């Protein structure tokens, strides 16, 4: 049982030393030899498979839109990796767990996975509350944890800017956080609708909705100071009747309505809003709207601004130019009859981040790496994914470009799509918070 704790300072020191050693090893070899000598007996690559635990919602309202597509994608990726010979020669033995049941039971599960089952890594978590509770366990228990989908911007941030990184030595998030979507929406509106006067928001009344709106409102007020926020609505999560909210939005005169709603709530809201004529008077700007045109189908209205939680879209990067997206989309569609929604891309990022980090570490240390060495290799890692090139920052948080477009009906699909050629791509540096800064401080520092 590896219960040895290490704090941030000692970890940073070790990372600095070992990082220098790792990168220099190809040139000088001295550090490499020392490390190899001290741990020679443990360095051979085990014959046993890698135990990979995957945790995402397999039941409940968050399973359909996120958990199940994520889990599907993990399965496809693990199969593909095993077919190619595994990770540094070790096959993946993947086991899926349900994220339902609340944060307490997830903390218990994570403890069990690390302490009793001795998994090599946990890839998981859609709920931000779960991520916040579980990532600290990585250093406490010495287990590698890659959060793959949860969105809260504060997960890897500390109380005050600037802060030193990383917050967790063995904890990572292999996707960017919710700020990228909301900042990208604000930038898109600035670029395409600079004359907009009235905006409104409808967001679910819990941390996700509140944080998403807070970032969007801050960003849009910086970018377009003349914009007036005419209504902010906070429906309860899993609301079944949005009539009151829709009438309220209609009466507010808002031209653009921001929303970070997800899952069945988005489908319910969209259908009721179609019935009540909202889309004839206002345009939605949906921070995580990517899955819903496909979910709702041909009824989904045109000209709605949709963000993709990065550049996660089955048509982007264009499949003829980026074969990795073509293959991923084809594999997913063949297995599950749908185009992969963004959580499926997030799952790809998590499992391949682990693969690339392990293989990088194996190549650098000349044998099977420790979890710390894998973490060091993952920090600053860049690799190709179906959505382009993903980079994991020194703060252990991934950085992504963002695709924002407007829905359009075309003959070749039975739901409205975003045409990549008519969409906007915001490069990572325009939408991702710089390492060591808090997102709100970064936005506040923008020149108006």
């Amino acid at each position: 049982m590896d219960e040895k704790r290490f704090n941030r300072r000692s970890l940073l020191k070790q990372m600095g030393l070992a990082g220098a050693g790792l990168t220099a090893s190809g040139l000088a070899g001295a550090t490499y030899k020392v490390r190899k000598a001290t741990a020679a007996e443990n360095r051979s690559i085990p014959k046993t498979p890698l135990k990979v635990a995957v945790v995402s919602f397999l039941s409940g309202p968050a399973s359909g839109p996120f958990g199940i597509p994520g889990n599907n994608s993990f399965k496809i990726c693990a199969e593909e990796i095993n077919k190619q010979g595994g990770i540094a020669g070790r096959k993946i033995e993947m086991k899926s767990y349900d994220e339902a049941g609340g944060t307490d039971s997830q903390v218990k599960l994570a403890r069990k996975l690390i302490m009793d089952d001795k998994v090599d890594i946990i890839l998981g978590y859609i709920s931000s509350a779960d991520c916040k509770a579980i990532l600290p366990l990585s250093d406490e228990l010495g287990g590698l944890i890659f959060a793959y989908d949860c969105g809260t911007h504060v997960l890897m941030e500390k109380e005050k800017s600037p802060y030193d990184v990383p917050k967790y030595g063995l904890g990572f998030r292999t996707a960017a956080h919710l700020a990228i979507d909301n900042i990208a929406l604000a930038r898109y509106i600035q670029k395409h609708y600079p004359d907009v006067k009235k905006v409104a928001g409808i967001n679910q009344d819990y941390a996700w909705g509140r944080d998403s709106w807070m970032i969007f409102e801050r960003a849009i007020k910086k970018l377009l100071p003349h914009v007036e926020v005419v209504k902010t609505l906070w429906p309860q999560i899993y609301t079944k009747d949005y009539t009151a909210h829709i009438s309220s939005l209609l009466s507010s005169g808002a031209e653009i309505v921001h929303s970070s709603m997800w899952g069945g709530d988005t489908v319910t809201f969209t259908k009721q809003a179609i019935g009540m004529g909202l889309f004839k008077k206002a345009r939605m700007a949906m921070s995580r709207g990517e899955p819903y045109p496909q979910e709702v189908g041909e009824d989904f209205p045109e000209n709605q601004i949709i963000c993709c939680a990065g550049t996660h879209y089955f048509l982007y990067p264009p499949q003829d130019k980026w074969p990795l997206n073509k293959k991923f989309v084809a594999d997913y569609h063949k297995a599950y009859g749908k185009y992969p929604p963004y959580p499926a891309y997030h799952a790809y990022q998590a499992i391949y981040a682990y693969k690339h980090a392990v293989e990088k570490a194996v190549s650098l240390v000349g044998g099977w790496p420790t979890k710390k060495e894998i973490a060091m290799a993952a920090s600053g890692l860049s690799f190709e994914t179906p959505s382009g090139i993903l980079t994991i920052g020194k703060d252990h948080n991934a950085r992504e470009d963002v695709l924002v477009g407007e829905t359009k009906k075309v003959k070749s699909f039975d739901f409205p799509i975003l045409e990549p050629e008519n969409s906007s791509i915001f490069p990572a540096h325009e939408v991702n918070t710089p390492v060591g800064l808090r997102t709100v401080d970064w936005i506040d520092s923008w020149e108006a």
Partner: protein
Amino acid sequence: MEYVLIYILNGLYFTSFVFLTSLGLNIILGVMGILNLAHGALYAIGAFVAAWLIGSMFAGMSVLLILAGGLVAAIGIAGACGLLMEISFIRPMYNRTLEYQLLITFGAMLAVEGLIKMIWGGQSYYASAPFVSMGSIEIVGSVYPVYFIFAMVLSFATGFGLWLLLSKTRLGIMLRAISMDREMAQAMGIRIKWFNTLAFALGAGLAGLAGALIIPTTPATLGIGMDPLIRAFIVVVIGGLGSLRGALLGSLIVGETRSFGVAYFPEIELPLLFLVAVVILVVKPEGLFGSK
């Protein structure tokens, strides 16, 4: 101001669902004295049955026909579940204290939720064909979906039908007699056991209808019955236990408070409802139409 009429209409729409859900809860509470926490789970059964039938089994058939089929099946299956529930584990609880009833009906709620998960899996079921195909009409300058009006009419008609049943038929009079004085009703020769089962099945069927009726506007998901249970409970409390008039007025208060609350005080959408309930209970602790 031009939207006030629409706000009222939205409030009525919300009222209709809360009313329909609270009717069943109210009957079971009034006749049997059982506070049925599993009411939300019976609502969920109605929702899943309707979503499953409308969304997949009957897909492609005439919309009104599949809607009618879905609603009837939901009432029937939820009612049958209620019947089984009453016979199996509610019956031994009649002479126990409230704590036992709460425990057993809470347990029943979890069991039914588990059953739903076993049968339909953890996924959401969509069945919006009736809502979409009925389209929208223009009312006082606003576009309004026809299905909402259909749901309102059906809910209030059900309430009216129930009122007729309880006040004009022999069966209803006997049910009311039980709710007023169980011992006396029994002494008069009313077979309480049989009526308990009937009342429970009726209440369960009404919960099933409410769950099924909302399905064309929203997917069926696990836990769908929780929120309606809480709101129906508020209605029963502020309207007065076992009162049909109270249920209607309580639902109206809940529905309109929500509609105007969202429009004018969106920050306190949910607390506002509880605030109104608290004020009513402070002023009239027995509820608007409850007896002391």
